[in-house]
């Protein structure tokens, strides 16, 4: 139960009869009048407990997009419900409007719309519906909260998909579908065709040319081999969801940058015909996508990533080789999305790497902080010089870790948050071109 502004105003108006009827009798009389009116009002107000709710909400929404949810309200009671309804979602669901007027005659149904603009990734839940039902005098209201569960999964935005077309074009260049042929180790033989001007003379297949010698004309038709990049390779993406992935760089947690990079890499590699597996891991596997292909892959990847938040625990790198072995025993590309900051913090990663590099091609991708880079150039006063020195020191630490990783036979990709996804994709393309998958 609650009272309205009219109730307060009505109480205040009581000062007139109070002065007219000289004091205590006026006061008591007025209070009795107000109490009776309020009781009548409450008795006539429709009960919010007689309402029934159905929620229609989309299961998924991309972060930053707006989706519409509907709430069907049915009045099973005998009196009309007039009042206000609050459909309470989590604040980060970005629900608008938060309060809606409701006029619902008995045995009727209304459709109320709430738009959601999630501002955070993950499961965004509806908590309850609260209805305040006023009486005809609008003095007092009956109020009740009813749990109406509902959830919308806010998916990672995949803003780096803008880089996808240019990388796909580069992939096609590798693929022999364009006129430019590539040849290199690790690419596999595709077909034989006649030599056209511009082909690499080294790709002429002399034995095939000899077989194809046309006896009628006697002219030699040169035959070249065409190549295409290997297909059906495996790419295993391991995203570190441990302590260091919670750090916010350029207003984006490291883990979100890692997700963006894995989505771009996943999209690219699945178009290139490779199998992509995703593991999100700190001490236990937080998310896993295995055996998906085609458009299914990205859908399953975003779905797996959506509810994952960084955990404030140290990542157990020792378990990673075993995990990768569970996914595949074949040689594959293992992409570790983590952070390389300081030699001390990366000891676990460095100790584990040789096990992976022995069997697989390994890329370690890390976000670098543009703030640190900028700090090295700002040297106005004493404080800034010390800050620049600390920044240089941090860069040096990261460089040492990167050098150690390279020494262990893995590739290092390090870039600012916005540049990391295309950089990882480029490194994948380079490895593919070199036939190292």
């Amino acid at each position, binding site marked *: 139960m609650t009272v309205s502004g009219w109730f307060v105003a009505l109480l205040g108006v*009581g000062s007139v009869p109070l002065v007219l009827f000289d004091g205590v009798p006026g006061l008591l009389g007025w209070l009795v009048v107000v109490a009776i009116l309020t009781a009548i009002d409450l008795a006539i107000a429709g009960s919010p407990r007689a309402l029934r709710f159905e*929620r229609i909400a989309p299961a998924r929404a991309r972060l930053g997009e707006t989706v519409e949810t509907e709430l069907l309200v049915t009045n099973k009671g005998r009196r009309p419900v007039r009042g206000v309804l609050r459909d309470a979602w989590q604040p980060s669901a970005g629900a608008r409007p938060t309060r809606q007027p409701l006029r619902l005659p008995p045995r009727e149904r209304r459709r109320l719309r709430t738009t959601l603009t999630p501002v955070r990734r993950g499961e965004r839940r509806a*908590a309850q519906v609260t209805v305040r039902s006023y009486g005809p005098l609008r003095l007092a209201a009956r109020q*009740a909260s009813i749990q109406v569960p509902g959830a919308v999964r806010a998916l990672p935005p995949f803003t780096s998909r803008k880089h996808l077309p240019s990388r796909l074009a580069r992939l096609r260049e590798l693929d022999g579908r364009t006129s430019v042929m590539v040849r290199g180790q690790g690419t596999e033989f595709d077909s034989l065709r006649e030599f056209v001007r511009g082909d690499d003379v080294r790709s002429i297949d002399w034995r095939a040319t000899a077989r194809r010698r046309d006896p009628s004309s006697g002219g030699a038709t040169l035959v070249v081999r065409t190549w295409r990049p290997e297909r059906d390779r495996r790419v295993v993406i391991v995203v570190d969801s441990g302590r260091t992935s919670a750090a*916010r*760089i350029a207003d984006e947690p490291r883990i979100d940058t890692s997700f963006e990079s894995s989505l771009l890499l996943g999209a690219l590699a699945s178009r290139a015909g490779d199998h992509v597996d995703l593991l999100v891991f700190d001490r236990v596997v937080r998310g896993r996508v295995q055996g998906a292909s085609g458009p299914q892959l990205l*859908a399953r990847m975003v779905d797996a990533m959506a509810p994952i938040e960084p955990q404030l625990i140290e990542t157990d790198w020792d378990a990673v080789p075993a995990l990768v072995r569970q996914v595949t025993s074949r040689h594959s590309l293992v992409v570790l999305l983590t952070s390389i900051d300081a030699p001390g913090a990366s000891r676990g990663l460095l100790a584990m790497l040789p096990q992976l590099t022995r069997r697989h091609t390994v890329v370690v991708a890390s976000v670098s902080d543009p703030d*640190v880079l900028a700090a090295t150039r700002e040297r106005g006063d004493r404080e800034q010089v010390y*800050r620049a020195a600390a920044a240089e020191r941090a*860069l040096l630490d990261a460089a040492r870790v990167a050098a150690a990783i390279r020494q262990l036979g893995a590739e290092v990709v390090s870039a600012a948050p916005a540049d990391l996804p295309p950089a990882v994709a480029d490194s994948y393309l380079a490895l593919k071109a070199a036939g190292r998958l």
Partner: protein
Amino acid sequence: MSTSTAAITDAVPSEMLTASPGRVLRRRGGWIAVIAVVILAAIALVIIRSSSNASAERLDPANPGPEGSRALVQVLEQHGVSVMATDSLSDTLSAVGDPRDTTVLVYDPHGVMTGAQLTALLGLGADVVAVEPGLLALDELAPSVGLAGELRGTSAAGCNVPAARKAGTVTGSGLGYRADSNDAEATACFTTKGISGLVQLRDDGGTGGSSRTVTLLGVGSTLENGTIASRGDAALALNLLGAHHSLVWYTASFADLQGAPTPTLAELTPNWVTPLLILFVITGVAAMVWRGRRFGPIVVENLPVTVRASETMEGRARLYARANARLRALDALRIGTLDRLARQTGQPRAAPVDEIIDAVAALLGRDRSEIASLLLDAIPTNDAALVHFSDLLLALETDVARAIHDPPQNGQHG
């Protein structure tokens, strides 16, 4: 992919989060009952305390404390003396039935009685015991007796007043009096150093031959519960007050104050002012309920962990600054500069410092020792030097970059 299949949830009646009034009563009934009992007990206690006649006033016949006189009154009552306590002159006058068989004790702790009132009291014709009368009261009761200040300690009766003689010695404190030795009517008792604790005046004439006494009792503590048991105090008190069958114990109060009654604030203001204030308070409370009533429970949001990545860098910078680690800071800057210079001059990552210095000196056409000092040897002795060296390092980098992109003309050399 952004919005896939819509999910329809909940067609059955949902869980009601708000408990109905009946359920609230059932669930919290115990607590409500406990609170109600506590409130009722508090109200009952207040009523009982206010209705009980125990007080804390000195020499109050109902006060059981050390300063009260309830012990004396009870003993008197046990011996057949009817004691009546009054607190105004009019009550006192009407309480006295037979003046010949009545003792009137008058105690005026605040000195509110006027001469006319005391005269009216004396006019009754009963025996009067005035406890610790003040200067003004003495003028009316016994003009021949003067106030002699404080009295303390033990003193012997030394007089012929029966009550005092029976008491022998009393101990106590109060006011002392000095009786005019020429006055035959006045008998002074318990005198030490000329100050008497009790003065009795005999009044023979007045009202038709009946003799009555006016006793000024200075040692009021003889009547108190706490001290009445010491020495002859009890004897004095009982004999003094129990001489007749009834005792009127008159404690003057503000009801005896004379003067035109000034109107109180309540009488000056109209009747509706207080109810109006009450109404405003009620309206205020209603407004608080109106604005403060929550529209359903708060929805909980699990906030993510937020860690700024550059915090370790900032922390290290503060450590450098606090420790004045100038050389260490400058070396860090030098390592960064050397790394960039090596890259700019096209040397391998692991090139020795000397080679980098040589290359830079050759590129800029500057003295090698000057550059070596900047990049290796110079030690900053104060903060100004550190900032200066840092600026020089930056300038060196820009110079090298400019020299590479925009090589100096040959003519300058030649």
